[in-house]
């Protein structure tokens, strides 16, 4: 998955050292060192909130929250981040174990605890994100490597909050990112159907149907920082120096050292 991510970075023309990954999923140090981005293991569900701070204090950063507990503990940050259109590329690792897909029951050994109780219906993440204002939504399984890399690249170059949902059961708050349950992903992959540009309303995952994957939405909307600069520029006029312009040199972080 990380290799795919790196491929996405490369395709987008983003250098790893501009990239900051706040995550509530445990990465392996070797991975981080190998790819060369900055990584923060945050408290559960707070990767987007943490990323909001990183981005606002240094707007030049490319902030890519990788999150697993996003839709449970971090649901609020997800909806509000989308609404604000904070410039973040959110990678949402969907940990939920779908007991049944396309009428077929999962026969593979599954993790004991998943983010929701087994009898609950999960969120339709692209739909929720889209309805809150996220500008880009896509869903892939971890095995759709090419498509995933393309989506990541595309999202990285969009201005605003993008959501890429990856069906990859396994890695969570306690176990590392490499810990994907390969059999289960294969099962999902085999039972998926690509439908780009599908209305996100229709991509909820249900026991009867195939998992719909694809790039669903891509739109333009003013980001938080742009809106901030426009509004304050209007009100304060000359007195106001736009925030975070000139590739972030004016950001709150100041110079290193």
């Amino acid at each position, binding site marked *: 998955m990380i290799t795919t991510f790196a491929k996405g970075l490369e395709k987008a023309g983003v250098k790893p050292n501009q990239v900051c990954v706040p995550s509530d999923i445990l990465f392996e140090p070797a991975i981080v060192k190998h790819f060369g981005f900055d990584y*923060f293991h945050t*408290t559960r569900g707070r990767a987007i*909130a943490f*990323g909001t701070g990183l981005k606002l*204090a*240094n707007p030049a950063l490319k902030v890519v929250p990788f999150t697993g507990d996003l839709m449970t503990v971090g649901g609020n940050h997800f909806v509000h981040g989308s609404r604000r259109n904070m410039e973040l590329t959110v990678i949402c690792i969907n940990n939920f174990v779908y007991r049944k897909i396309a009428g077929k029951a999962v026969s593979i050994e599954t993790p004991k605890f998943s983010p929701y109780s087994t009898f609950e219906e999960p969120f339709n993440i692209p739909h929720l994100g889209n309805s809150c204002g996220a500008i880009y939504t896509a869903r892939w399984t971890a095995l759709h490597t090419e498509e995933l890399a393309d989506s990541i690249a595309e999202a990285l170059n969009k201005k605003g909050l993008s959501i890429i949902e990856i069906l990859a059961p396994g890695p969570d708050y306690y176990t590392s990112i490499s810990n994907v349950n390969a059999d289960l992903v294969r099962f999902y992959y085999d039972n998926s159907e690509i439908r780009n540009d599908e209305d996100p309303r229709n991509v909820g995952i249900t026991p009867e149907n195939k998992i719909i994957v694809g790039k669903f939405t891509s739109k333009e909307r003013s980001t938080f920082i742009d809106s901030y600069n426009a509004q304050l520029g209007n009100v304060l006029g000359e007195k*106001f120096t736009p925030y975070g312009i000139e590739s972030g040199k004016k950001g709150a972080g100041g110079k*290193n050292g």
Partner: protein
Amino acid sequence: MKADQRDVLTGVYYIDGDVASGYGALAAGCKFIAGYPITPSTEAAEAFARIAPKGGAMFIQMEDELASISAIVGAAWAGAKTMTITSGPGYSLMMETIGYGAMLETPFVLLNIQRGGPSTGVPTKTGQADMMQARWGSHGDYELIAIAPDSPQELFDHTIKAFNLAEKYRCPVMIMADECVGHMTEKVVIPRAEEIELEPRRWYTGPPDEYIPFKPDEDLVPKMVKAGSGHKLFISGRLHDERGYPVDNEHFELKYVRRLIDKIMCNKDKIIELKEEQLDDADVVVVSYGISSRVAVRGIEMAREKGIKVGNLRLITVWPFPDERITELAKKVKAFVVPEINYGQVVFDVARCCHGNANVVLVPHGGAGVHMPDDICDAILLGAKEERKIEKVIEFKTQLEKLVFKGGSKLKE
């Protein structure tokens, strides 16, 4: 390092404590505040929101307190000086991430304008019942610094002081003010920028590849870098080694977490600030902090008029606690009197440090108001009179308690 001229609103003001703290934050070079409205701290956020854009700073109102504190920890790692503002209930919500911030050795400041608790309590009135929470509220072992200002001027000064301490020791610093101080309007003098001394962040300047995020300097505090500057940071809130890599052996708790505590405890002498008055020949010492220390003075004056030798010890820094100073004093005095706007918190630390050498009288107050000076005076008299050593914190019965529980109150029909 001196403050930046653009950030300092030099002049003489007549403002309340909350606003003074907002001005103090900007003067201290704070470039990012994330907050969420909560009475009685909101005015500080509002003040900062008004002045921030002119100093190139950002105020953002997040969706809740959990997001606010997560955002400032993130912003601190992106290089900014940061702060968040809250009161009791919001403070409780922040507990998880305060511990996380301590674990990451993140410099940030938290302003808590205390109100009456527990739960929603009395939002618009004063309290001092979050003091122990500041020290112990997050899970796990850690130490942090807490200071208690007693006037709007101090809220300005101590906000700067808090930023300085945070940068110096790379730890969360709590400003534990109370509603009374936050909503009190007094004269505040903001000096010129060149008169404000700021502690710069401890930047690491060596080759990026050799950076070890949690390798301490001699004073046990490690150096920091900015995210996104090519250091391939791996920063985990899990138990980690010097490189920041997670470790799976509790053995490291002793090695690593202990340093979080030691870096504060070993620098205690430099951190702790006390204000002492007439302690040389005192029989009784009043120990207080925040607004209570101002209120206590009246009680002290009354007791002095009655011929009691009373000294006054004000804790400007409450955490770390001045253990040694109290122990030393306990050997000389008969009693300590501790007025707090709670039912006993810091008093237990006073009692602990006495080692049985002096009696300890607690003057409690549930909040939503301040002590009656008469109560403090009577408690002083009680402390001066008692010859026996009493192995218990003596809980003084206040006039309010007598009124409410003896049927004098209008609330009890």
